[in-house]
């Protein structure tokens, strides 16, 4: 009886509840996913073991290959456009004194709005009859005459744009935190040497915020893989799979067509990818990259 109340066990009692629900919601289903990916289960009937057939089938899945390509484009887009804009915003913010808080709050605001609200804002603005296109047309400018969400060549970029529009303010905040930690005497020394703004940014700011910068690269790469909300809300992967991403493909396989085994295989592939990305950045840290 006394053993049950030893301080070591009491420490465990306090941890167990949170551990238990996380195990139930995340760990156990993830492990079942590993097992289900080796079956052809449809969610109701008999479960047949089929080995790695789902995984080999993925290589013949035209839509899956398209989705992978789109996720890579998505990642590349997020690694360039929002980072560049956020760097510019953060760097300019460090150079001003007045209205700093105002800009920061405005930039950050879309990040805390729901994906459905942000999506609706842009669905309207890109609407050919009511949005920017109509407004331009009234003034004789032929721009956005059709919605970029329903045009094959632009749908993926239009969705990525909306997601990036909501996300870049987050990057501003983490970059500016790093920029304020840079010792001011470095800039003063550079001023004496007659360095330009760009040189100061390139040779002082960027190297000094490297850990935060590399961290931002990592989370963008990790977050780009399960990207779902904006695609599902704005285009559902269409038209003609032109904006299909992996998460959306998995979702329709699982919940529209009940191919549970196959969809699980896609989920496993996503996890393997994330695992390697995290491992890669862990390795960088191990070899002394200070991240």
């Amino acid at each position, binding site marked *: 009886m006394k053993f049950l109340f030893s301080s070591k066990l009491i420490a465990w009692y306090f941890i167990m509840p949170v551990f238990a*629900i996380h195990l139930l919601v995340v760990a156990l289903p993830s492990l*079942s996913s590993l097992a289900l990916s080796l079956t052809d289960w449809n969610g109701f009937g008999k479960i047949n073991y089929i080995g790695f057939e789902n995984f080999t089938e993925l290589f013949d899945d035209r839509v899956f290959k398209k989705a992978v390509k789109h996720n890579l484009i998505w990642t590349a887009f997020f690694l360039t456009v929002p980072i560049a804009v956020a760097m510019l915003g953060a760097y300019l913010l460090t150079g001003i004194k007045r*209205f700093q808080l105002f800009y920061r709050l*405005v930039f950050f605001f*879309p990040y805390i709005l729901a994906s459905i609200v942000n999506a609706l804002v842009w669905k309207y603005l890109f609407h050919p009859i009511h949005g920017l296109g109509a407004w331009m047309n009234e003034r004789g400018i032929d721009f956005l005459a059709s919605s970029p969400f329903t045009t094959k060549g632009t749908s993926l970029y239009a969705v990525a744009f909306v997601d990036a529009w909501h996300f870049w303010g*987050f990057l501003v905040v983490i970059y500016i935190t790093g920029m304020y930690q840079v010792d001011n005497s470095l800039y003063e020394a550079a001023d004496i040497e007659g360095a330009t703004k760009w040189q100061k940014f390139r040779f002082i700011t960027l190297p000094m915020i490297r850990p935060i910068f590399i961290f931002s690269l990592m989370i963008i790469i990790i977050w780009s893989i399960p990207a779902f909300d904006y695609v599902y809300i704005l285009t559902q992967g269409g038209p003609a799979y032109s904006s299909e991403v992996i998460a959306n493909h998995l979702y329709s396989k699982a*919940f529209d067509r009940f191919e549970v085994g196959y969809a699980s295989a896609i*989920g496993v592939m996503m996890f393997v990818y994330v695992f390697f990305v995290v491992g890669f950045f862990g390795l960088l840290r191990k070899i002394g990259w200070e991240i």
Partner: protein
Amino acid sequence: MAVAKFKRNAGIVNHIILMTLALTIILPLSVLFFNSIKPQSEFAANPLGFPSKIRFMNYYDAWVIGGYARIFLNSSILVVGTLIINLTLSGMAAFSLAVLNPRGRITVVLGIYLLVGISIPAQMFIIPLFILWKNLHLTNTYLGLIIIYSALNAPFAVFLIRSYMIQLPSELFDAAKIDGANTFQLFYKIAVPLSWPVFLTTGLVVGLAVWNEFLFALTFIQTEAYKPISTILFAFQSRFENDYSLVSAASIMMAAPIAILFMLFQRKFIAGLTGGGLKG
């Protein structure tokens, strides 16, 4: 003199670029607001501008036709329920990790487990979770979604609360122990009251995440009467495809509580959302 002038010009250039960036956010959100108070008849003639006749009745219509009173209640139940379960359980775990066993093996093992847990994409476990929840009759219930949200936000909450509790002076707990307090009393009489700022920050971030959540709400609640705002708005948007004033009014109603809380607790929001990200 020349230097001073150059600096002032640089400041103006900074402001011009920053203002342009700010307008790319302010203008689209203003259009949403204008649309929410614009009569439906004016949309064709005046796509982006301020309405010539302000019509606040759009909000009333959305509230009544869209049944928003009930929908707000659904989302609020999910938020409050998640906050109660998540903050209690995460607070207990954080207390154990920070105070009871600061350098123990538990900390390392659980830390690694939670880190792996964070990096698993939702798509990896959502299908078996759905089947499990269906068998437990937890789909289409508030409780089912509340348990999921509590678990998903637990790693973040535990890390954040622990990082605060670990700074509490151990003398406080030692003194209370001498006075005969048991472990549970140490938790709710000393650790929790002293850590209220971090509970507020965590609560804001977790509450925001639940209020805005889309994927799990879409998957686990199909019964119309239990749907939260995010998925109702998604349905609303296709149902009233051509009634933008109602959709816009509904969107503003969803964003308003967030905007107000953000104005009140901007520092806590930003620190919680970015700091949590940095640590996790």
